[in-house]
């Protein structure tokens, strides 16, 4: 039934949008959609149109707590019904198919990357036969933070969450999973465009690949070390009452074939007409060669995976299905919110400094998907300096002339993704895998109240004070 909802929803957007795309509007592809999304040729939505988004956020926050089983059965229908309200408004009232196609293209890009990393890493089994200690746990988190920049926060999370839980099976507590989400699923991935989707969108716009590592490492490193140090202190107080066992110290790795698939996904990230001119565009489809490769990897890596590994990983599509359904609703309903925010940011550009951009991007990235949020604030920052986000030359000039501004939104978009379960795609997946393994995870609110607000906000405030306060 869920599949039918989903297919109907995508089909409706595709067919209606394709039908309404007129000769005056350019054909769209993943990259051209991104190029032309901010043209400002359409009316702004009514502020009331943020209500479906607010309703969806409230439902995501309260559903699993207050009406758990109703929510579990009906979240696909709820997410899509609320998304449909926004879609119909854009189609009928604003006549703006462009924003919808842009969002659909971004959603397909987003879910193709997440699904392919999720499925390919599901066919890999890492066994660590070592006694869990706070030091080993901290080491795994640091390792995860580093590889998140090579295989993305999703790939690193999926690869490491099970071994991390297995070595801690006799002393596992929800805080360990929460810190895993903080470090591996979010903050870790701030150094390369592969690390986190917002940086990838910046890269597609013209920010140089190595700009992020050379301009963010000195914020990334102390932040990662501080969060890991807090984890270490808390973890050191977690008594290990496990009976003495013999550990071989062995680390076993199975599923090498799927590592090959992970490499294909990483290479395919760059296969975009905006980056490589020889890559054909598939206009007017809101999908490109890159997404086709990623969806093919989904199929091939699942079909070719070792059955024993899938069984040991208890591989299940539900975590990625949950992300796919919820985020299709989030992507659709947040269009008006993002457009209004982008408009206000541009209008108030002169009064906004780097620190304001840091907080605005950060707070919104915690509740909206961080990729489109980042793009809107990138556009607003360029607008502040009279530049155009659609021009790669302008983006390059901006990167060189105002690195502080670019750094502020890049750091904020990635770091603040850890603030809620919906801040970044892998957060939900890690939560779901943990619950299926028997770990009772904190609710949406408890995650914020007990963990992200008291632990991350002081650290992020410190980042702001040191790097952005009174600057720009």
């Amino acid at each position, binding site marked *: 039934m869920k599949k039918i909802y989903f297919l109907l929803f995508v089909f409706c957007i595709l067919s209606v949008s394709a039908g309404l795309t007129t000769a005056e509007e350019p054909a769209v592809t993943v990259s051209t959609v991104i190029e032309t999304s901010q043209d400002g040729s359409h009316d702004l939505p009514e502020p009331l149109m943020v209500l479906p988004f607010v309703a969806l956020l409230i439902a995501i926050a309260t559903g699993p707590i207050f009406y*758990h089983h109703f929510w579990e059965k009906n979240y696909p229908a709820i997410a899509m019904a609320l998304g449909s309200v926004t879609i119909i408004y854009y189609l009928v009232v604003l006549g703006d198919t462009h924003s919808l196609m842009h969002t659909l293209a971004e959603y397909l890009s987003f879910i193709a990357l997440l699904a392919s990393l999720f499925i390919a890493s599901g066919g890999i*089994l890492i066994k660590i036969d070592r006694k869990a200690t706070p030091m080993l746990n901290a080491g795994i988190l640091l390792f995860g933070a580093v590889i998140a920049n090579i295989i993305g926060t999703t790939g690193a999370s999926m690869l490491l969450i099970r071994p991390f839980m297995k070595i801690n*099976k006799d002393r596992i507590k929800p805080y360990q999973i929460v810190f895993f989400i903080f470090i591996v699923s979010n903050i870790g991935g701030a150094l390369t465009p592969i690390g986190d989707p917002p940086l990838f969108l910046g890269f597609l716009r013209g920010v140089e690949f190595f700009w992020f590592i050379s301009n963010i490492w000195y914020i990334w490193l102390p932040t990662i070390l501080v969060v890991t140090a807090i984890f270490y202190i808390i973890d050191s107080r977690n008594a290990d009452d496990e009976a003495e066992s013999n550990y071989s110290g062995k680390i076993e790795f199975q599923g090498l074939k799927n590592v090959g698939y992970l490499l294909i996904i990483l290479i395919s990230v760059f296969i975009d007409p905006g980056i490589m001119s020889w890559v054909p565009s598939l206009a007017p489809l809101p999908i490109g060669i890159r997404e086709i490769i990623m969806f093919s990897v989904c199929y091939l890596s699942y079909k070719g995976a070792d059955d024993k590994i*899938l*069984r040991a990983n*208890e*591989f299940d599509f539900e975590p990625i299905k949950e992300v796919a359904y919820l985020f299709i609703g989030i992507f659709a309903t947040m269009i008006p919110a993002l457009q209004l925010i982008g408009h206000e940011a541009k209008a108030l550009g002169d009064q906004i400094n780097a620190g304001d951009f840091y907080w605005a991007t950060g707070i919104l990235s915690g509740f909206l998907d961080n990729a489109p949020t980042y793009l809107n604030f990138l556009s607003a920052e360029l607008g502040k300096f009279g530049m155009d986000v659609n021009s790669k030359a302008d983006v390059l000039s901006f990167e060189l002339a105002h690195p502080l501004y670019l750094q502020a939104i890049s750091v904020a978009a990635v770091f603040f993704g850890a603030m809620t379960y919906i801040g970044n795609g892998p957060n939900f997946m890690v939560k779901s895998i943990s*619950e*299926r393994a*028997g770990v009772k995870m904190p609710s949406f609110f408890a995650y914020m109240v007990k963990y992200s607000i008291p632990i991350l906000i002081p650290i992020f405030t410190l980042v702001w004070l040191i790097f952005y306060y009174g600057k720009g």
Partner: protein
Amino acid sequence: MKDLMSSLESNTTGLHYGNRVLLPFKVHILKAIIENDIITDFSLTKHNAHYNITDEFTEIYFHDYKDIKENMSKYETVKLIVVEKGNDIFDLSNHLKISLHFEEHHKLEIEKIDGDILFIE
């Protein structure tokens, strides 16, 4: 009727009908995981699930599911922590982790969970 260990060793299967699961041995159930649900309250005042130990088998009702098999994907299982009836429930070494695979024709494969499967008590 076989005891728990010999049932597992001989791969004796159980049965499933809709939301009802029948295990071919007598056990107390301490924890069950079905999808994202972690169930530890089997009291009659709660509607999640409850179990009965009869003279012939143990039956579990998962009230929130009409048909459990429909909710289970290929590699997904229902996981239980059980203690054989008559054994000391307070001795942790008697706690056993088992997984239930929902097969066709109401057949329920029961396996002892090995080290590979992640299941936290």
